[in-house]
């Protein structure tokens, strides 16, 4: 790719954002349908993107169909703005969408594309979150036939997913799903909320921001519209539980960098091979550090 090439503005006005007009129309119509039927996996004609399937082509198509010159974009990969996937997607958007601002600060962004995480700080009504999805159908683990899965979705028949949870409790005394936790949207369709950790699942519920999920390889788009009920699948007497990050003594682990005790932590090894924990959301971690510095100088 020629990193120094810039589209002439009059051309950019027409084919802004890499996708041709027909592709954008297709994706936008699909997004509208997905918003109208919360949680329903809307099929669409996923385009070839100049990157491999599985590198976020679904999310990228949604982002490119929505983005305009007045947007500010933030791209996250596993919580970080500087991972390979995030850097490359951001560069690609900068290259194909002249005029679009990119940022690492969440409060500045109007459009956020993310992989594996929902940002720590609550989203606002002015923001749209796009998640990259590898496997859109939660029923795929219990039913191999797609035709039958569609019927099960239509009839809201998720008993076999619940049997899986039952077996988990029988064998391990708790539900052991760590990410991709099946979540019921608007009391009907159960979605696979992309590989976000359990920690992020409650953020889907009544979210002020529109959340769009795009699966490029599987050619599906689905949505959690603003202020929609999103309930993780559970039994009446076994409540949903997020990661508690307690150590052996039962104390909440803190981030080794900013000291936060209210964020999702990643485990690392330091130079002495000891385990340390750090915020997975790098922008949040940085923000906390800035706040602390301000407090000490004031």
């Amino acid at each position, binding site marked *: 790719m020629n990193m120094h090439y810039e589209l002439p503005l009059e051309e950019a006005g027409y084919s802004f954002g890499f996708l041709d007009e027909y592709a954008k129309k297709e994706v936008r119509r699909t997004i509208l349908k997905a918003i109208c039927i919360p949680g329903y996996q809307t099929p669409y004609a996923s385009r070839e993107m100049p990157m491999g399937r599985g590198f976020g082509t679904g999310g990228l198509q949604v982002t490119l169909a929505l983005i305009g010159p007045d947007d500010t974009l933030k791209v996250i990969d596993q919580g970080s703005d500087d991972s390979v996937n995030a850097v490359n997607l951001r560069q690609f958007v900068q290259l194909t969408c002249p005029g679009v601002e990119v940022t690492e600060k969440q409060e500045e962004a109007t459009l956020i594309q993310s992989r594996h995480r929902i940002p720590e700080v609550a989203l606002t009504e002015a923001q749209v979150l796009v998640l990259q999805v590898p496997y859109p159908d939660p029923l795929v683990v219990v039913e191999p036939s797609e035709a039958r899965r569609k019927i099960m979705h239509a009839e809201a028949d998720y008993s076999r997913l*619940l049997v899986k949870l*039952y*077996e988990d409790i*029988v064998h391990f005394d708790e539900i052991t799903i760590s990410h991709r936790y099946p979540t019921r949207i608007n009391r009907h369709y159960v979605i696979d909320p992309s590989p976000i950790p359990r920690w992020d699942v409650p953020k889907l519920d009544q979210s002020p921001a529109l959340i769009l999920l795009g699966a490029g390889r599987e050619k599906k788009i689905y949505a959690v519209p603003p202020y929609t009920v999103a309930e993780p699948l559970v039994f009446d*007497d076994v409540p949903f539980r997020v990661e508690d990050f307690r150590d052996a003594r039962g104390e909440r682990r803190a981030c080794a960098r900013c000291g936060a005790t209210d964020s999702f932590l990643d485990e690392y090894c330091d130079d002495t091979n000891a385990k340390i924990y750090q915020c997975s959301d790098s922008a949040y971690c940085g923000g906390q550090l800035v706040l602390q510095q301000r407090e000490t100088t004031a």
Partner: protein
Amino acid sequence: MSNKILEVRGLSRIYGYGCPLCVASTGPENDTNICPHCSSVVALHDVSFDLFRGEILGIIGESGSGKSSTVKMLYFDDAPTQGKADFFDNGQRHELFQQNAAQQRRLRNKRFGMVYQNPHLGLNFQVSAGGNIAERLLMSDVAHYGEIRRRAQELLLRTEVLPERMDQNPKTFSGGMQQRVQIAKALATLPPLLFLDEVTTGLDLSVQAAILDLILEIQQELKTAMIVVTHDLGVIRLLAGRTLVMKYGRIIEAGLTDQILEDPQHAYTQRLVASNL
């Protein structure tokens, strides 16, 4: 109010294109159920019967006589080409074949139970015995883990499966025990109507006797109406009050079991009884 639970009228099923001559050129008198003109298979033709609350109805016949097909249609495993069936439940009449897929699934999950000859059809071998019963309860909207555990325990205890085997995979069970788990699963929602398709075929005699005892006890206890499909006259004699004899998709004789066994009218039934006694 009549205590009729099921009314089946004119049930027919033709596999293949079917032609106007199909019905006339098949049946016991033609000694075939394959139409010589269009080679369609007339699996069922004009099957009608009634079933009453708490009654056990036997259906007997040779392989391919349509006895299993009848039950399959009623359990929505297959759809008939013609005919109607009414299911009476809590004073409500459900026209089985007029309902949409969701209503049919509701009846199937909550009000009907099915025990197949092959446990692989009725049980999910990916999950434990308890999980199998849980599946059925979850389908009928019981979503309380403790409640599901308790009911599964009760049911397995009732069907004489050792409680410590509840969390094991039915793959590791003997054939008789798999059949007991299947019965427990079918009974999970306490359905008023239970279909038993060759439940004792392939089991040894002592296990057969135990399973038949269990079925009788359950019928006494829960007053469940049952349709028992078998080719074994012994099973019919032990369980069923009334019996239908089927051949080539037609009912050729119907009546009280004792009457049919002691005084068979149709030549085929006579041969059947004579060969067994």
